[in-house]
C-alpha cells in the first residue's frame, strides 16, 4: 500500500518507502555566491547557538548536585551526578513525577489522536460535501484559530464547574480534542489530495460514506494527519494554563504544571530545585522522540499544503 506519491518530491528519505513512481527527487537551485552563503551560515549559527544554549545549560545543570550548581561553570560538567539526580526525582513522594509524565502522555497522546480524527473528519466534510452554511461554518472554525487557548481557559472553567467536571481527567482532555487549525489543514489537504473521481468510484462500488472515508480518503490524507497530530500533541503537551485552572489533585497533573508548582515553591523548599531541572530535561524527551519519529511525514505534509 502506498501512502502517497507526493512524498518523494519533497523528501528523499521517503524514497525508502515503496511508492508508485515519482519524479527525480533532488533538484538543484541556482548557485549562490560565497559571501551571502557565509553570511547565511553565520546567522544560522548564531541562532542555533541561541536556541541550543539553554538546552545545553539544562543538560549540564541536571548532572550536578546543588553545591556544584551554583559554584561551578554553568556550561560545563562538574561531578557527574545525573543518575543519582534522576533516581532522587523518581523516588520523590512515591514517584509523583512519573505519574505526571504518564498523565502528559495520556492527555497529549490520546488527545492528539482523537483531535486528529475529529479534525480530519470535519475538514474532509467541509472539503468534499456541499451543504448550506458550509463556508460560514468554515469561517467560524477558522476564527477559532485566532482565539488563544489561554483566553478560553477561564470561561471553560466556569462551564465545567456547572457540570461538575473540574478537577477531572475530562476537564483537560475534552478541550484538548478540539483543533481548529487541524480542521483548516485537513480541509486544504483533502481538497488537494482526495480526488472526487475516486470518491465517486468508491460510491459506485457500493461503499458508504463512512467506509469511504476510513478506507480511502484517510489514507490519502495521511501526511496532513501526521502534521495535525504533531501540532496538537505539542500544543497539549505545552498547554499550561488550562491544567492550572482546572486541576487540583496532584495525581491528575500533567508534567508541565507539576514542575511549575514545584518551581513556585523553590524559595521555601530549595531542595526542589534539582528536581525541577532534571524533571524539565526529562519532560522534553518524549517531544523529541515524537518529532524524530514523525518528522519525515510532517515535513511532507507541510510542504504539500504549501504547494497548493
Amino acid at each position: 500500500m502506498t501512502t502517497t506519491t507526493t512524498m518523494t518530491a519533497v523528501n528523499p528519505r521517503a524514497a525508502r518507502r515503496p511508492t508508485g513512481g515519482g519524479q527525480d527527487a533532488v533538484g538543484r537551485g541556482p548557485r549562490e555566491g560565497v559571501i551571502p552563503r557565509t553570511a547565511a551560515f553565520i546567522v544560522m549559527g548564531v541562532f542555533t547557538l541561541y536556541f541550543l544554549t539553554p538546552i545545553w545549560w539544562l543538560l549540564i545543570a541536571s548532572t550536578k548536585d546543588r553545591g556544584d550548581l551554583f559554584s561551578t561553570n554553568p556550561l560545563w560538567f562538574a561531578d557527574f551526578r545525573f543518575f543519582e539526580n534522576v533516581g532522587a526525582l523518581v523516588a520523590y513522594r512515591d514517584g509523583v513525577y512519573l505519574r505526571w509524565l504518564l498523565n502528559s502522555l495520556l492527555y497529549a497522546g490520546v488527545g492528539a489522536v482523537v483531535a486528529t480524527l475529529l479534525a480530519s473528519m470535519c475538514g474532509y466534510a467541509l472539503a468534499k460535501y456541499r451543504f448550506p452554511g458550509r463556508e460560514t461554518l468554515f469561517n467560524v472554525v477558522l476564527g477559532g484559530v485566532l482565539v488563544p487557548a489561554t483566553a478560553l481557559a477561564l470561561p471553560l472553567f466556569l462551564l465545567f464547574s456547572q457540570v461538575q467536571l473540574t478537577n477531572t481527567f475530562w476537564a483537560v482532555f475534552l478541550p484538548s480534542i478540539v483543533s481548529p487549525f487541524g480542521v483548516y489543514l485537513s480541509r486544504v489537504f483533502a481538497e488537494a489530495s482526495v480526488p472526487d473521481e475516486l470518491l465517486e468510484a468508491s460510491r459506485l462500488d457500493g461503499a458508504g460514506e463512512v467506509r469511504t472515508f476510513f478506507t480511502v480518503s484517510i489514507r490519502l490524507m495521511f501526511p496532513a494527519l501526521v502534521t495535525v497530530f504533531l501540532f496538537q500533541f505539542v500544543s497539549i503537551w505545552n498547554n499550561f494554563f488550562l491544567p492550572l485552572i482546572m486541576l487540583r489533585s496532584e495525581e491528575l497533573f500533567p508534567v508541565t504544571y507539576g514542575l511549575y508548582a514545584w518551581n513556585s515553591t523553590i524559595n521555601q523548599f530549595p531542595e526542589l530545585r534539582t528536581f525541577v531541572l532534571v524533571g524539565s530535561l526529562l519532560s522534553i524527551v518524549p517531544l523529541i522522540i515524537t518529532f524524530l519519529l514523525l518528522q519525515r511525514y510532517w515535513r511532507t505534509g507541510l510542504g504539500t499544503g504549501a504547494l497548493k
Partner: protein
Amino acid sequence: MRSAKRAAAAALLTVSALAVAGCAAGGGSGSGGDAASCEPAGEDVTLTFTSWIPGIEDAVAMWNEENPDIQVEVQTGPSGNAGTYQNFFNQLEAGNAPDLGQIEYDALPNFRVQDGLVDLGACEDVLAAEDQFLDWTWGQVTLGTEDEVYGIPQDQGPMALFYRSDLFEQNGIEVPTTWEEYREAAVQVREAGGYITNFSDSDINQFAGFVWQAGGQWFENDGDAWTVNLTGDESTTVADYWQDLIENDLVSTYPAWTDEWNNAYNSGEVWTWNSAVWGANSILSGAPDTSGNWSVALAPQWNAGDEKAGNWGGSSIAVFNGTDHLYEAAKFALWLNTSEEALTSLNETAQIYPATTAGLELPVLKEGVEFYGGQPIYDVFAQAATQVDPDFTWGPTMTQTYGDVSDGFKAAAQGNGTLLEALEEGQAATIATLEAQSIPVAE
C-alpha cells in the same frame, strides 16, 4: 445535514445558557453574608483542603486515620501568588471552592474584602484557642476585629540576622546589634572585599518586615475605610537607610533566589542575610559549601537596647465561603495547627515554623543545627517571635502593591530614582487600585 445544523444550534444554546447560569451563580455566592452556624453535621463528612506545602499529606493522613467521620482530601497547586490565589477566586466565583485553603497572612485581607471567607468566630473552640497562639499571629487572622476570625494561624516568619561567623571573626569585625553598627560593619566588610548583604529589589515583603520592626504601619482598617501609609516616618527611615547603603555600594543587588544570588552566598561574597526563620533552609540548600560557618543573631535594632523583630511570611488555614461543614473544617484546622503530632510532622516534612507558643517548644526545634555550627538557632527565632509587633496589618490588594513598589525598587537598585520614590508611587498606585475595586479609602 439539517439535523446537524439543529444539533449545532442546540449546542450553542446550551453553552450560552450554561454561561449565563455561571454568571448568575457567581454573583450569588459573592453576596452571601449569612452568619454560618458552627454545628456538627451528624454524618460522615469529606472536606477538601488546598495547600501547596510539600508533604502536608503526611499530617493529613494522621488526621484521617484518627477521624474516620471527618476525612480530609488534600488538593495542591503552585504557591499562592503563583496561581493558587487566583484559582481560589475563580473557584469562589464558580461556587466550587474547597472547604479549606492555605492563605498567607498578607493575602488574607484580600479574600476578606472579596467576601471569600467564613468567620470562624462562630465556633466556640476557635475563640477558645486564642490563648494558644502568639498574640501577633492571632492578630494576623482577626484582621483587627473583635471576635471575628478568618483563619487559623499556621506558621510564622520572625526575622533575625543570619551571618557568616567565620568571616566576621577572621576579619575582626563585631557582629552588629544596631542598624548603625550594621552600616559601620558594612564599610568594613566592603574593605575586606565582600558585601554585608544583598538588597533584594523584588522581595518587598522583606522590606515590609523591616518597616514592621521599625514600628511602621502600611495599612489600617477602621471597619469602614482603609488608610494607606507606605511613606510614614518609619517607612521613610528604613527606605533612606537602605538607599544610603545602595548608593555607597555597600550592598549587592542581585535578584533574589537566582543562581547569582545563591552563588554570592555560597562563595562568601555576601556575609549576612536579614531573613525569616524559613531562610535557614534557603541558605542551607543555596550555599551548601558554607556549611558550619553560619550563625544566627537577633536582628539589628534601631535603638540600642530595643527588643523588636520584624516578620516575613507566614500563613493561615482559612475556611471558604460556600462550605457546608464549618464545624468540621474548623476542628481540622485547629488540630493541624495546634496538635503536637501535626506540628512535628509539618516541621519535619516542610520546615513549617509553628504559630503557637507551645509549638515553639517542640523538641525538634530545640536541637543544634549542624549547618549553623551546632547552634540551636530556633531558640533565637523563638525569642524573635515574641518581639513581633501584634498590630501590623496587611492591605487588601497586597499582590498589586508588591508589584507596584517592586518596579520602583528595581529602578532604585540600578541607580534610577530612590526607594522612597518607589514607595510614593506604590502609595498612589495602591490607592488607585483600592478605589478601582470600590474599596473605601480614608483620606
